[in-house]
């Protein structure tokens, strides 16, 4: 059935491995680094890893992927003629990535502004000393 097809992966895709490595690196940074700025950077790295993953999902270099400028009849006609349904770069992940990048930028901006506030109040950016709320 057409809708239940799977993404055929004939060779290992290096993009996916790199994106997972980035995500893990980001999480490691958040968990281990005691500097608030580094924690914020870790959040950024997680975002970049995921963005890379989404773009990789949409990209498909089989059958000469081109820019996705088609209308639905052309699309279906060509698909029936050639039997290949994925011959262009999927536009949806690119839209998702743009949204995700904007959100990531907002996260970073907001987190850094909170770090400035925290530094003014606590006179430190060490996470071990910013723990008034506990227990």
């Amino acid at each position, binding site marked *: 059935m057409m809708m239940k097809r799977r993404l055929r992966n004939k060779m290992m895709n290096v993009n996916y491995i790199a994106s997972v490595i980035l995500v893990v690196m980001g999480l490691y940074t958040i968990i281990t680094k005691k500097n608030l700025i580094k924690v914020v950077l870790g*959040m950024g790295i997680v975002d970049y890893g995921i963005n890379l993953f989404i773009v990789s*999902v949409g990209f498909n270099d089989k059958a000469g992927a081109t820019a996705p400028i088609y209308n639905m009849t052309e699309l279906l006609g060509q698909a029936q003629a050639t039997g290949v349904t994925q011959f262009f770069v999927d536009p949806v992940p690119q839209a998702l990535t743009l949204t995700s990048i904007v959100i990531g930028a907002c*996260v970073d901006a907001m*987190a850094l502004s909170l770090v400035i506030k925290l530094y003014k109040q606590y006179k430190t950016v060490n996470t071990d000393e910013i723990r*008034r709320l506990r*227990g």
Partner: protein
Amino acid sequence: MSYIHFPVIAVMTLFMGAFLTVVLGRHSKGVRSFIALAASCVSFALIAMLVKPVMIDGEIISYWMGNWAPMSGYAIGIGYEVDQLGLFFALLVVTTILLSAVYSIRYIEKDSSQDFYYVLFLMLSGSVLGLVMTGDVFNMFIMIEIMTFTAVGLTAFRNTSFGAVEAGFKYLVIGSIGSSFTLFGIAVLYGQCHTLNMAQLSAMLYGNHSPATLMAFALMFTGLAVKSYIVPFHTPAADAYTTAPSSISMVFSGMVNKAGVYGMIRLVYIIFRTVDMPSVQTLIVLFGTVTMFIGVTMALAQHDFKRLLAFHSISQIGYVITAAGLCTSLGLSAGLFHAMNHTLFKGLLFLCAGAVLRSTGTTNLDQLGGLSKRMPKTTLCFLVGAFSISGLPPFNGFASKWLVYQAAYEKAVTTGNIFYAFVTVTAVVVSVMTLASFIKVTQAAFFGQLPARLADVEEAPGLMLLPMYIMSLLCVGTGIFYDKVYQYLLDPAVRAAFTVSNYIDRMMGDGYAEAAGVEDVFASNPHFSYWNPVIWLALFVIVFCAAYICVVTSKGSRGQILSDEGGAEDGKYATFFSGEKALPSHVAGSDLFWGFKTDWKGYFRVMEGLHSGIVNDYALYVVAAAAFVVVFTFAFLR
């Protein structure tokens, strides 16, 4: 048919309200309040008008943005789909928004930069309302992100108060890790299915799981669990509920964590339909039970009014998750009913805490006492809330907790699994501990002696009392007329969660679900074991009136104002004090139940060590739990 536009207009009204607050309301307090109130009222009215077609007539509303309807069996545009389950949560959301907006008018009048308060408040409201009605997973992610940002902004709103900015930062870090997991899950899912529409995903994934979709399930499950603040993701919630303004604490516990609960129910019941598997039920019930227990024990150790309520809020969400994870119609009814009741009574309790904070300037239980003399109306509302959350009949907490016990017990009997028997016992024990904890709060804050410092505190203004009265009435009303609630709200919602094919067909066209091989498994109607709430109510009213009259009007030493020199003369006991003055002293929050705390010293020491306040530790819990879910998924899901 004009009502098909209502869901979108309701969401847009709130976002437009946020925009207009900045443009028009910068300099005028009246205009700001008016815009916030008007937007809340409009969205409430629009959602309330959907009750008739959706809940009673059983219609599911589908709406394609820009009329991008599906072509060739593929959903292209962004769709909104309001089924009974979504509308149930939407009703909770709009009720919370409206009551909180009314309460905010007086509550934040002394704060600076109120225009930003209303902007953030309306955006938070709009995003949660959009989240529960959307039919598109990426749209859901966007709404989650807006929700997280605005919630962080509101947590740190009183940024000069103790720990507010710190709480906001922790919330942001943990929240954005959760959002990242959700987004990663959505990306994996898109790579497999090439669609983002929930209905189409549901049709594709029904009984058709590959390793990649299981990975997506584990990631999205973790991400949404972070948003519902179940243990071990609860740490930022406890801080945020404490430091946010009380009107916002109510919004957090009333709808923001309900959004996470809704997401989890939608995920396991509709999108992946993995809840039929016993292993997934075990996973969810395990999380829920741990949440109940750790939440309530942490609450016993607290000295701050709002932080105590925050841990109770976490604990009650444990009930909801446990009941929903049982995957029986009785269990899901119990879960949804408790979710609704939690919105009502926990919101009420946070509003009472806000009234106390506004009047006395503190929420430290060791510094409060005897407020029933000065704030009798707040005390009355607080007692209604406390009785509801502790599960006393005839209040709503009793009805839903009873259903939870019954559902867990029924599950234990039908599956013969000792684990569910253990869950039932834990649920009962947790309820007892909740009652104990609220005895402590009631004694520490409202009864006992009034410190001299608080001798002239004032009752909260009428505009703040109004939402508290409404919520009190709803707490009693839903407890007494639980059968009506079941008939009009719970039963349709539960049916919607169990009939996946309706959800798919309404969005993708008739016959789509059948072509994809989706079968509905609707369990039989739950049988309640009947109790008669009216008799309980009569008994309760008599006892309560007697106690209330005794407390408020008594002339004895109870409720007396403590002067600095000591208390009143009482000749009766003079013999025992060798002629010295007897000193009536207030039994403060930390003194009650100290024996219990001493017995469990080791446990509390470990728990306080775990809630260390260090953001790295909290992030570690989230990542460790995510790793656990992933390993569990691959080991047991078949």
